[in-house]
């Protein structure tokens, strides 16, 4: 038992319960639950703790702040002198201010729509068990990994002037012109944002909701509250940490939206991210691109800071219930209707475009039969040195994804543990942490820091890697490791946001009771925290896996010698004319969807030891 662990056990015995006390014990939770307390001398232990807990920060420092600072300082010093002219230009030009404004409101609108549409789905998934549930849940996450251009092709197949929807409506209503004209409109941008992000709300909120005690709401109903009032005044406040976390992720994703805006929105729409890309790639105007990046990052930071503050206020320990208690088969007609309507919405909104893609990949060939393009994936008729065998692409993608999951879960759980412990307001009697003595005062700033990579332009950061990581010991510019690092940077916020609400919801008294009864910190962690957090960790794992499988922006910007991933193979096919290329791009997309669906199902099947399902 290390110094940290022992301290916790003592603390647990000394302290009573109560508001301040609860906070105090939560503060030590990270240590108490820590499986890292290696039996050794106190000094070794404190050093280990310092090291372990600072790993996530070190990671951010090396692979985020350092490259970012390098490229920004280079961009702002053209010709060797500091010049903030670009920032001035930014705020003088109405176009950029309009772009900022559009970026903000389209993201806000997309978030409201996504949360509004997905919340009923999360409810149904939290409270009911029905056949095919895990498959539907897996399918709702598939959109997240699809390259935008593939989604655009699927939307055209469904909603374009000659798409299925228009053809059906024309036949049904006897029209001679397609009634739906969604291409290159704001509507299709919003639709695509819902399509991509629905799963975030479904999984994060649904998982949290599943462990809420239904009796709370039932008690309110018994006391005379209507269905809506009970939801609004009892359930909604309890859910707010999870909803907030999901909404925040959706917002940042839409705030930095790039592919959707460019490909589906067309040239009339631009977000900051789109403008950064244009300035960098087409105008080669690094100072202006850097200025736009800074605005984007500052906005994300401010938003996150506000969020973190609100979260700390609303988060509270809960009496959680295992799923077996909270979930059941829908029985009454009204319940079946709710389940059916939400599953139907998911199928139409999220699964129909996927089906359209698969169907197209099977029917496009006129002569070769349904699997013609799948067979062609395995051929290299031109003897190209850059031919990617499908097996190889799948292996590369899976390899990067699994490494990303491992790295981001490790760092993410550590980061969550660091973020969990609130500032030591009053708890002088408690043996304080031997490590990170100065951290508490910084903690309000830490949470936003972990989110920043999501709000940072991939173009900017990609160039930062080129500039910063170019000399030993960090000569990583052309290393495949860089892909994993970049993916982890994006996946980390998902893990933190998935896990933190669950960790905060654990009633510290549970841990205290366990410790009081003589459980070792390791056992407390395993039997109290782990069962409750395991689900959330799996959600984080799913997202880390998803982020890595689908990531294209950063991967494509990293100078890589080999190891193309599946999205990169898809883009290669789509870069050339000819039906064989189109067909193989569709076949590879189908393969990507298949691999991801299987991956999600596998992750969800994963159980930690003999821990009961929660």
């Amino acid at each position, binding site marked *: 038992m290390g110094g940290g662990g022992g301290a916790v056990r003592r603390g647990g015995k000394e302290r009573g319960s109560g508001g301040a006390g609860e906070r105090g014990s939560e503060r030590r939770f990270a240590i108490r639950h820590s499986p890292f307390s290696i039996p050794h001398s106190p000094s070794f232990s404190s050093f280990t703790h310092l090291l372990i807990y600072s790993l996530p920060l070190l990671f951010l420092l090396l692979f985020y702040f350092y490259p970012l600072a390098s*490229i920004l300082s280079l961009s702002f010093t053209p010709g060797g002198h500091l010049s903030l002219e670009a920032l001035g230009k930014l705020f003088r030009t109405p176009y950029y201010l309009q772009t900022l404004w559009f970026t903000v409101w389209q993201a806000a609108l997309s978030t409201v729509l996504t949360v509004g549409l997905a919340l009923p789905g999360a409810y149904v998934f939290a409270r009911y068990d029905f056949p095919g549930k895990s498959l539907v849940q897996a399918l709702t996450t598939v959109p997240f990994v699809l390259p935008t251009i593939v989604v655009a092709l699927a939307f055209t197949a469904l909603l374009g002037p000659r798409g299925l929807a228009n053809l059906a409506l024309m036949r049904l209503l006897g029209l001679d012109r397609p009634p739906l004209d969604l291409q290159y409109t704001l509507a299709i941008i919003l639709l695509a944002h819902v399509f991509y992000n629905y799963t975030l709300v479904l999984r994060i909120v649904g998982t949290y909701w599943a462990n809420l005690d239904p009796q709370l709401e039932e008690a309110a109903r018994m006391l005379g509250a209507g269905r809506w009032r009970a939801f609004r005044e009892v359930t909604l406040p309890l859910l707010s940490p999870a909803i907030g976390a999901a909404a925040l992720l959706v917002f940042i994703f839409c705030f930095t939206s790039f592919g959707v805006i460019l490909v589906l929105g067309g040239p009339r729409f631009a977000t900051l991210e789109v403008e950064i890309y*244009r300035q960098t790639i*087409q105008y080669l105007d690094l100072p202006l691109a850097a200025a736009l990046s800074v605005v984007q990052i500052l906005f994300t930071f401010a938003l996150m800071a506000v969020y973190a503050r609100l979260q700390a206020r609303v988060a509270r320990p809960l009496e959680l219930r295992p799923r077996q208690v909270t979930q059941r088969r829908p029985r009454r007609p009204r319940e079946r209707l709710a389940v059916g309507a939400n599953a139907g919405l998911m199928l139409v909104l999220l699964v129909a475009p996927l089906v359209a893609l698969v169907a197209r990949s099977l029917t496009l060939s006129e002569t070769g039969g349904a699997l013609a393009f799948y067979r062609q994936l395995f051929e290299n008729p*031109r003897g190209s040195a850059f031919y990617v065998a499908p097996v190889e692409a799948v292996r590369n993608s899976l390899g990067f994804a699994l490494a990303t999951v*491992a790295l981001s*879960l490790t760092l993410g759980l550590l980061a969550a543990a660091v973020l969990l412990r609130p500032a030591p307001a009053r708890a002088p009697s408690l043996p304080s942490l031997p490590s990170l003595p100065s951290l508490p005062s910084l903690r309000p700033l830490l949470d936003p820091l972990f989110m920043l990579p999501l709000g940072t332009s991939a173009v900017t950061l990609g160039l930062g890697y080129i500039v910063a990581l170019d000399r030993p010991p*960090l000569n990583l510019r052309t290393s495949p490791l860089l892909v994993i690092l970049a993916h982890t940077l994006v996946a980390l916020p998902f893990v933190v946001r998935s896990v933190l609400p669950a960790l905060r919801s654990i009633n510290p008294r549970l841990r205290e009771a366990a410790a009081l009864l003589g459980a070792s910190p390791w056992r407390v962690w395993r039997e109290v925290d782990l069962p409750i957090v395991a689900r959330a960790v799996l959600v984080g794992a799913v997202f880390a896996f998803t982020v890595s499988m689908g990531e294209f922006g950063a991967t494509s910007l990293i100078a890589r010698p080999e190891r193309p991933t599946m999205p990169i193979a898809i*883009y290669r096919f789509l870069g050339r004319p000819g039906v064989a290329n189109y067909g193989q791009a569709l076949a590879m997309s189908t393969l990507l969807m298949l691999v991801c669906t299987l991956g999600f199902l596998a992750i969800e099947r994963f159980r930690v030891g003999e821990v009961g399902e929660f």
Partner: protein
Amino acid sequence: MRRMVVLVVVGLVVLGGCGPGPAPAPTEAPTPTAPPAPRTVRLMTHDSFDVSEEVLAAFEAQHNAKVEVLQAGDAGVVLNQAILSADNPLADVLYGVDNTLLSRALKAGILEPYASPLLDEIPDALELDPQQRALPVDYGDVCLNYDKGWFAGHDLPPPANLEDLVKPEYRSLTVVENPATSSPGLAFLLATVGHFSETGATTYLDYWADLRKNDVLVVDGWEDAYYGQFTYGSGGEGDRPIVVSYASSPPAEVYFAERPLEEAPTAAVVSDGSCFRQIEFVGILKGGQNRDLTEAWVDFMLDQAFQEDIPLHMFMFPANQDAALPDAFARFALVPAHPAEVDYTAIETHREAWIEAWAGVVVR
């Protein structure tokens, strides 16, 4: 869990301690007895770079070398990376800078002159840099393509030139790429700049205003234009039978067709002044290693074997006049005799102004 942490710690240490350093460069003369270790030539290029295994292997065997290809996005990204890493170059050779980016590359001073003997086999018209820092490897013409079947079925003659597109009978038929985000899009804008010029009775902006009135569709990139909106490329889901693509797209359609075709299903409009010629260059990066090997690679890229490999791998035309064209190209590719002319130095100075003016007329 603990094991995972240990793994990560070890990973970070390994990562910090011994990241793959620069390519091995045994410069000292090899002893005559032991076979020398292969040297590496590092090639930095865009995602469209491709070559057949056989051709690449021939070079590697002949020079006892390994070619390391670094691909990082499109040509603009790659050039940016090359400029930013000038002090400590990522590679020894840069391939894929075209005439729309050439001026920027030359101004940045990242390339070294190299008077390859193979330049004798390349037409002077393609050699834009008199100091021979950028050597032409291939070229391709960005032209309007049309769906032959669609026009045959609609009893309308296919477009013969740029002017046709603004006629009422061609209303709502054309899809183009955004010059602010797409390289063929920029090339087509340059074709209109070269053809209509900036002054006179009908300027290029007047032309674009007319195109807009005629319901031209502007999309972000080539993929969406060709596979999403173009009637032929999308397999009937798109409704635009005219698209901005390459003069090499029709032979590619034949080459990648499911069954042998007697005729290309699409065609390029190659009348005078309606296309823009992209020329792609190779150059030796300052501060690279193994100058002799790098020169050998540049020569190799300009020599027959590589040049004849270009059409079916990159769908561009070889710069070397002696390179024979593959059957699909010889039979189905049209090469415009007189593409629109825009000086490459003018592209650098005016790019932003032209695109902004274009956006003002077409988008906003």
